């Protein structure tokens, strides 16, 4: 979420899910909300029922399109030109919020200059979206306020994910749709506790509470709290860790609840990397495809078997409660890490339980300072919650932004090509999808009914492309990219655009991520899983 931290000073969802229900316009870009965030989607549908206008921007015709006033079906990887085109219309028609730009933002001029490259003719050519639709969407978003933007991996999982996010935040700043209820820039986070994992510092560049590891002040704060010397060098990201394993720079790997064999972009590379590790420990609740490769496998407790907290996508810290004793010898992850620390003679790992861990977190993280288990007993709290008597923050940036200057920062952007080009050999673009019935794989694949409902992976392909290739509905085909190939059943559907096919990544039988591309976004280091060039053959 590097983009929003630069422009707004915080990478999290600015507003609250239920606020969506009261928005007058919702722009849903790069999110298949009904599939990936069903309960947030209900708020979107509620808003439409109450008269709100929904704008959907997605390369694929998703379920939400049924409710949309405008559907912008842009080519994969052209989010920046699409949004810049909308902003150009807003400025040309004088629909921007001049007072907001003058009082609360900075860097407007250089951003405005970068808009010059995005005349509507160019935008139409790049995105494949008709100009009148872009104009209509721009007018609705700018005038029927409050307007909220929601987005998901369709925006971030690109080689230019950071630029995409910045384009979204430019749009909100331009129209003053931020810092108020039912507005904002709202990244819907995928897994249940992604937000929390980021907040508490499971990131290579920041300590808990987004305090930079390279900042001497932050480092000395954590050094004195933990009673040790800490490294002053930012660590490696997820994908870089696998590169370092391959090159032999990293020797031991400790992995909790992760299954990169299925989820990593370019899975074959990840497998090869893990095989090179001298020593690998996997802690999980099932023997996953990844755990099979480990030297030691440790059984973790499942969510219903432990106490703790999750932080949802709207920064809401909520209490997770133990309902069952863990199966067999399984133990909570925190307990296991503490035991290892003690065996390595470390101090500061004698926690009596999760409540005490939360207290230590609060003492080091200003945003969680006012959160404690006794308060959570009475209800959830949205961070920032800086003190015991603070009731939490439903929406961010009410008075000022979290940036150094306190201003929202416009960012000039240019068009960059999607990570991978199609060519004669790989003529189609593949994007990845999510299914309502599955969530990554390890857990949902073990629920019988969910497998009945979402039986297998399908390759969605437009009838025109299917005809050209001689592919019939439900026929097995081979999908090959520059990195690997998989076999999958084809589904011929007009929901795709010509030239673009899509596929999920939930099934071990069809490891879609053998195909995808791990070229990284240069800032966020997010692999461009969303777009890769493929060839499809009948078999």
């Amino acid at each position, binding site marked *: 979420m590097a983009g929003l931290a630069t422009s707004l000073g915080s990478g999290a969802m600015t507003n609250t899910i*239920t606020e969506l229900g009261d928005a007058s316009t919702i722009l849903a870009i790069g999110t298949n909300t009904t599939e990936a965030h069903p309960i947030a989607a209900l708020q979107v549908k509620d808003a439409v*029922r109450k008269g709100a206008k929904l704008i959907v921007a997605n390369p694929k015709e998703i379920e939400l399109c049924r409710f949309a006033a405008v559907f912008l079906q842009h080519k994969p990887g052209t989010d920046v030109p699409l949004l810049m085109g909308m902003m150009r219309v807003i400025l040309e028609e004088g629909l921007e919020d001049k007072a907001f730009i003058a009082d609360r933002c900075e860097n407007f001029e250089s951003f405005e200059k970068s808009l010059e490259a995005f005349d509507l003719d160019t935008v139409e050519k790049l995105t494949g979206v008709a100009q009148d639709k872009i104009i209509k969407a721009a007018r609705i978003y700018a005038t029927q306020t409050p307007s909220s933007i929601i987005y998901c991996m369709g925006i971030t999982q690109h080689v230019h994910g950071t630029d995409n996010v910045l384009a979204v935040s430019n749009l909100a700043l331009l129209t003053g749709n931020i810092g108020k209820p039912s507005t904002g820039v709202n990244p819907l986070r995928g897994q249940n506790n992604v937000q929390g*994992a980021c907040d508490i510092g499971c990131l*290579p560049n920041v300590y808990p509470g987004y305090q930079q590891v390279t900042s001497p002040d932050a480092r000395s704060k954590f050094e004195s709290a933990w009673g040790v010397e800490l490294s002053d060098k930012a660590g490696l990201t997820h994908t870089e860790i696998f590169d370092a394993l391959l090159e032999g720079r990293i020797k031991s790997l400790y992995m909790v609840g992760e299954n990169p064999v299925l989820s990593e972009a370019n899975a074959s590379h990840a497998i090869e990397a893990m095989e090179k590790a001298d020593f690998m420990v996997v802690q999980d609740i099932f023997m996953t495809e990844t755990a099979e490769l480990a030297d030691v496998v440790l059984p973790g407790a499942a969510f219903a078997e432990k106490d703790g907290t999750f932080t949802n996508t709207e920064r809401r810290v909520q209490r997770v409660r133990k309902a069952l004793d863990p199966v067999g010898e399984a133990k909570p992850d925190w307990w296991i890490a503490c035991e290892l*620390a003690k065996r390595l003679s470390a101090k500061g790992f004698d926690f009596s339980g999760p409540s005490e861990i939360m207290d230590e*977190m609060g003492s080091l993280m200003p945003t969680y300072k006012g959160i404690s288990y006794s308060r959570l007993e009475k209800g959830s709290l949205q961070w920032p919650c800086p003190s015991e008597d603070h009731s939490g923050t439903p929406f961010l940036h009410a008075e000022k932004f979290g940036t150094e200057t306190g201003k929202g920062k416009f960012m000039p952007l240019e068009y960059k090509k999607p990570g991978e080009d199609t060519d004669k050999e790989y003529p189609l673009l593949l994007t990845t999808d999510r299914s309502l019935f599955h969530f990554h794989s390890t857990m949902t694949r073990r629920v019988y009914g969910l497998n009945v409902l979402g039986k297998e992976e399908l390759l969605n392909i437009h009838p025109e492309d299917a005809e050209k290739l001689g592919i019939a509905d439900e026929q097995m085909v081979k999908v090959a990219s520059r990195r690997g190939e998989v076999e999958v059943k084809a589904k011929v559907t007009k929901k795709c655009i010509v030239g673009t096919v899509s596929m999920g990544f939930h099934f071990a039988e069809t490891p879609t991520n053998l195909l995808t591309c791990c070229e990284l976004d240069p800032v966020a280091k997010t692999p461009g899983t969303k777009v890769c060039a493929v060839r499809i053959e009948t078999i």
Partner: protein
Amino acid sequence: MTEKIELKINGLSVTADSGMTILDAALRKGIYIPHLCHHRQLEPIGACRLCLVEIQGEWKKTVISCKTLVKEGMVVLTETPEIQKIRQINVELIVADHDTDCLNCFQNTKCALQRVADHVGMDKKRLDRLKKPDKLLPIDDSNPFFTFNPNRCVLCGICVRTCDEIQNIQAIDFVHRGLGTKVAGFGDRPRLESNCESCGECIVRCPVGALTEKDAVRPTHQVKTICAFCGCGCGVVLGVRDNKLVSARGDLGNKASKGRLCVKGRFGYKFVNHPDRLTSPMVKKDGNFVEVGWDEALDLVADNFAKNKGDKFAGISSAKATNEDNYVFQKFTRAVMGTNNIDHCARL
């Protein structure tokens, strides 16, 4: 702005809010008026005609209380001989058409039809005459999570309205007319072939045993927690029996979800009880995993980690684990292993 409205129901003084229906005002006061098709989260339709009441004085007439708003000074009677007569016929008609094998029904003792019949009473002779020879309609058990038994359906339409008003999906509707009326997927197709998303919201609201979860078991106790799937963070109340999860329902008090759940939150918890769960630490010896005790596993891991402290080590944590798990894990990586090589899968 809601105003307070004073009225009398069965001689009792009742304070209601403006905009409330007579039925809601009575129920809030603890006065039972028989009803089947009413649900407080849905628009009233007045289909079952059991909630009839009589309004006295200048407005004197018999009305359906679920569709009539309270007015200042209103005087309402919920029970009169005429109302009782109409209600009884309505109840008998519904029961005559109902598969009353109550002991084999999951809703037994919780069923709205039982309560209505208990309150209104029936004339056995008349009922026997109305009762048709048992000719049961086929059950739709196409959905892997729940069953629809049309023989227990009272055609209240709550499921249809839930799917439309709450879910905005419109997967089901009434099909056919008259005696053959039933609820089904579009074009009388099984639910699995409709665009039903299996959210289960309709099952939760069905007042009788027509829509029931498959293999449903009543829990011995319940625990309030948070769904483990997506970032919405819906509140879920898990039901436990014999140290196994047996049920899940939405937590109405949860501020993120307000009681709603999707298919994963409602039915997906079952992975916790799956026989494939890892139950013991395992160490690979000669290419095969061997179960070992915690001490042996932890000693082995600690010895190996000790050899690769610093930037030769990397930790990857999980976006599924709790904040506390992840906090300790990053502290371990930074403070004990001495490296910032820590990440999780948020980027994916």
